[in-house]
Structure formats: C-alpha cells, structure tokens
C-alpha cells in the first residue's frame, strides 16, 4: 500500500516536472525542473530495490550532466526565451498525430501482461544486495554490451573533441583579424 502510494507520488511528480521543464520560460528553471525529475526517478529505483542505480542516477545525471547543461546556459546567459518561427508550417497535423500516438500508447497498456520473470526477482536482489547483483550481471552475461558501451564513450570523446576543436587555419585566420582571445594555440 505504502509503496503504491510512493510510486504514484513519484510518477505524478515526474510527469509534472517533465511538462514544466518544457513549459518554463527560463532555461535555468527548466533545468531545475529536470533536477527534481531525476530525484523522483531515483526514488522509483529505490522502490525497486535498485539502490545502486538510484545513487548513480543522482551522481551522474544530477551531479554531472545537468551541471554541464547549467554551465552552457550560464555561458550563453539567456535570460529571455529566443523566439523563432516554427520550422514546420502545419504544426497542427503534428500535434494531431502526436496526440493520436499518445492515445494509442495509453490504450495498449490495457493489454499489457507481465512476461516470464528472470532469476533476479526483488527478493533475490535484496538478498544479494543490488550493487553485487548488478556487478555480477554486467561482468558475466552482459560483458559484451558493456565493452560496446566503452567503445561508444570513446567515440563520443573523439567526436566531441573533433567537432569542438578549432582547426589550425581557423586560428590563424582569427589571429589575422586581430582577435586576441585566440592567441593561446586555439585553446577554448
């Protein structure tokens, strides 16, 4: 009963803050709405005995990723929303389709039946502690996906640097134009 109540509370807050994050005029407020959202997501994980995931959710998403978002927002320092014309001329059709998809997704939850559970039931997880259960699974059955993720991160690092780094010729051009800020070898 209590856990159901907590679930409903978390789910409700997640939905509300999700909407707020999109609707807020001030981007910093949006980020904070997402922060609250992440905390309630961590709450949901706790409800499932996934305490490790809950902690990681907060450390990684709230503690690192969102902070980086804030960083970008501060550097850009938008106090007002930038308004542009809609990219799609006839957005009512898109709204209609989205609403239809939404209805369908809601409707099909009626026919949802829980499939065959695996060996990690909530009791099994509680017994082994979540961190250990996760560790065992990741480093035995899911070792290949784990390694692929490592590769994805490598690509993200390489690609990120590649796109953000200034080319040597760009730096030279900028120097010729007399921009003083780029004199240190194009470091950003």
């Amino acid at each position, binding site marked *: 009963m209590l856990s159901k109540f907590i679930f409903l509370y978390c789910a409700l807050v997640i939905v509300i803050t999700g909407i707020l994050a999109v609707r807020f005029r001030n981007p910093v407020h949006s980020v904070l709405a997402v922060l609250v959202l992440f905390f309630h997501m961590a709450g949901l994980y706790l409800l499932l005995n996934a305490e490790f995931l809950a902690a990681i959710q907060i450390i990684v998403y709230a503690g690192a990723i969102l902070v980086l978002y804030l960083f970008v927002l501060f550097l850009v320092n938008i106090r007002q929303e930038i308004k542009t014309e809609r990219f799609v001329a006839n957005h009512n059709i898109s709204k209609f389709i989205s609403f239809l998809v939404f209805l*369908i*997704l809601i*409707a*099909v*939850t*009626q*026919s*949802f*039946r*829980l*499939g*065959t*559970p*695996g*060996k990690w039931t909530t009791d*099994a997880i509680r017994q*082994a502690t979540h961190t*250990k*259960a996760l560790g*065992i699974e990741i*480093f*035995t*059955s*899911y*070792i*290949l*996906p784990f390694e*692929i*993720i490592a*590769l*994805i991160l*490598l*690509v*993200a690092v*390489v*690609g*990120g*640097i*590649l*796109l953000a780094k200034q*080319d040597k*010729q*760009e730096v030279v051009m900028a120097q010729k134009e007399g921009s003083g800020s780029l004199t240190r070898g194009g470091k950003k």
Partner: protein
Amino acid sequence: MNTFSPFTLSSLSFLGPELVLLSVGILLIVVDLFFENRLLLPWLTAAGTLVSLVLLFNSPSGIVFGYMYVVDAYSVFFKMVCLVGVLFTVLLSERYLTTEKLRHGEYYSLLVFSTVGMMAMVSGGDLIVVYLGLELMALSVYCLVGLLKQDSRSNEASLKYFLMGAFSTGLLLYGISLIYGLTGTTDLSMLSQRVVSLDLINNHAFLVGLGLVLVAFCFKVAAAPFHMWAPDVYEGAPSSITAFMAVAPKAAAFAVLGRVLIMGFADVHIHWGPIIAFLAVLTMAIGNIAAIAQKSLKRMLAYSSIAHAGYALLGILAGNNEGLSATMNYLFIYAFMNMGAFAILILLCDNKRRGEQLDDYRGLAKTNPLVAALMLVFLFSLVGLPPTAGFIGKFYLLVAAIHAGYIVTVVAAMIFSVISAYYYLRVVRYMYFENAVQETAAVSISPGMTAALVLAMIGMIGMATFPGPILSFAGKSLIGF
C-alpha cells in the same frame, strides 16, 4: 550467487574481424598524432579493412557470449557488404579530403568505429547488443556528417541527423522495453519462442512495441514517411560520407530488420507484412517522384537512395528466405553501383566546381569521355536496365514479392522504376547531348580513386555476368534460419 561466465578467451576468436578493425581505429588516432604524412591514414585503413575482410571468411562461426553475439553466414554476408562499403569510402576519401581541406585523422578512425558498430548490429543476437551497435554506428556518423565545420549545410545536416536519430532511438528503446516487459527477455531466439508460448501474436501492447522498433529501423533505412532527414543530411554531409551512409549503415539496418522480423517475429508476419508493403510503396513513390524535381545530383542521389530502400523492403516484405536473400543480393549490388556513382561525383569535385549540380555534367562526354562512360554504366544499373547488375538485383526482389503474393506492390514497384528512368537518364542526356556551359578542366585522378572505380566496375560486371556465387551465398546463409 551465480558465477557462471559466458566469457572465455576463446570466444574472442569469433570476433576476429571486429577486433582487427577496432585496433586499426585506435592505431589511426595514434598515427595521426605522431606522423605528418596524411596519405598514410587512408591506406592503413584500407589495409585494415582488407585484413578484416579476409578474417571474416576464415573465422569460425557460432554463438558466443551466451546468446549475445551470433556469428553465422547471414551476419558474415552483411558484414561483407559493410566492409566493402567502408573500403570504397576510404578509397574515395583519399582524394576528397584533400580537395575539401579536411585534415582530420579522426575521420578514418570514426569511420572504422562506425563499421564496428554495424558489425555488432548485424551479429547481435540480443536486442541490447543490436541497440548498442546501432548507437555506436550512429554516433560516429553524426560526427562525420558535421565534419565540414565551415559549411553551414554540413552543420545543419549533423544537427538534424543527431536530433532525429536521438528521437528514433527513444522510440526504439520504448519499443524494446515494451517487448521486454511482455516477454521477459531480450534474446531474439528466445523472443520468438516466448511470443508463441505466451500467445502474444494478437496482443496490442506487443504489436505497439514491435511497431515502435519497426519505426526506428525504418528511420535508419530512411523509408518513408520517416525519410525527412535523409535529403538534407545527404546533401550537407561530405560527399564521401554521403556515399558511405547510403550503403553501409543502410545495409546494417536492413540486416537487423531481417533478423528481428524474420528470425524473431516470423509468426507475426500477418501483422507486419501489410505495413511493410505500404511503407515500401510509399518509399518508392516519394523517393522517385521527389528525385525528378532535383537540380543537384547529390540531392537526387539522396532521393534515389530512399527509393532504393523501398525496393529493398520488398524482399523483407516477402517474409521468407527467398525474399531475404533477394534483399541481401540487392544491397550488395547497390553498394557497387551507388559507390560508383558517388565516385564520379567526387571525381568531378575540385577547387573550381563542386560536381554536385546537374549543370556540371553538361557535355561531360566531350571533355571526359571515359568518366562519362563510367557514369553511364552506373546510372543504367541504378535504373535497373537489363544487361546491368541492377537489373538482376531488382528482378529477384520482384520475383520474391510476387511469390509471396504481393502483386499490387510489385506492379507499383515497376511503375516507379519506369519513373526513375526519367531522372537517371536525364543525367545521361546532359552528359551526351548537351554542350558544356563553361570550359572544364581535366579531372585529376588519384590512386585511391582509380582503385575505387576499377573495383566498382569489376563488381558491376562480375555481378551482371556471374550473379550465381553471390546469390547462392546469400541463399545458403539463410539455411540455418
């Protein structure tokens, strides 16, 4: 608890081709850092791809990492297509990067990493591996598309592709989570059993999950109505990457479609068959009709690649081995003809002109008869005119679809094929029957470009005259299915 580990060192021997590519990718970053010579990189990549290709045919086949990674003839075939695509791209890039003044060594390593992703997708026996392979492939390609940093079209393309790709990934994950919740597994072979044993064939939630997965992969193969990103991205990306995207990631996505739909959900064919049929017709219609209006050859080829995805869907649509082998065969042939056409496009791109506009091809037959003749062959093949390889590919696709009973779809495909002849042959008309608007400089050829063109021609002629080996290889690889 359970200490069973499916990982042993011997399972690495099944991953030979992937590991070779991976080490080449990392080596490339190091080489780029310490060596000034830019020409080292493409040839190193090409060599790595060749080694990987050789290893591909000499690796043992089996299922490793539990059930996660399936090395069978089916995956070997698609890996071959992807590797051929990469090989072409590398050969084309050698000259293209110098004309565009792209000096990033990471270009090649990202290309290689993206190929590793495709190979993981193709071999994935578990939806999680498939998804991660897809991400690895897509992430590398997002970066590659935006590599022309001075060109706002390239920036736009990269951003657009990234946003749309992220959105489709979201749909894919939502679909996978629905399917996982209903069946309790992400293992593809287990899935097909559970679908039957849990009686999910008519379950709405399951069908929506499958639909979402389908949408995500239709996005990756740029099938209508999920093709919106394709023309802009193909046009904005560096030409070599456009050629790459039209061939390799598309083949990988088709491989997954084939594996998921025909291996995992063959029993649900009654539901997804008509949807694929509709998508195929729509894709062919939009691709072919929109291509007519294009003034830029690059954009026209983008629409043509959408149309070709529609043709390839015909084989999936059939839902049986005959259809799938026809699709495999077609994708292999398409790799050669499309790469050939892009090779010409890149060949004509130099400091003065970009070789992307149709006007650049006026009177090409008079100034460069050989180049024009090659282009002629590739275009004929793309139309699917009888003596060429393209005809053979299309023929088997249509036969498979007829055998499966989709007569209307086949008729539509033929009509659109005829329409496509108009815009392909318009290029031929420009080349042979019009006079050059301006004085065109002689094209400069490079070793990589020569190799690419020769390879494309050999492939085309080989497939047109002896289509047997590839067809039987594709057919044989499906026996275990």
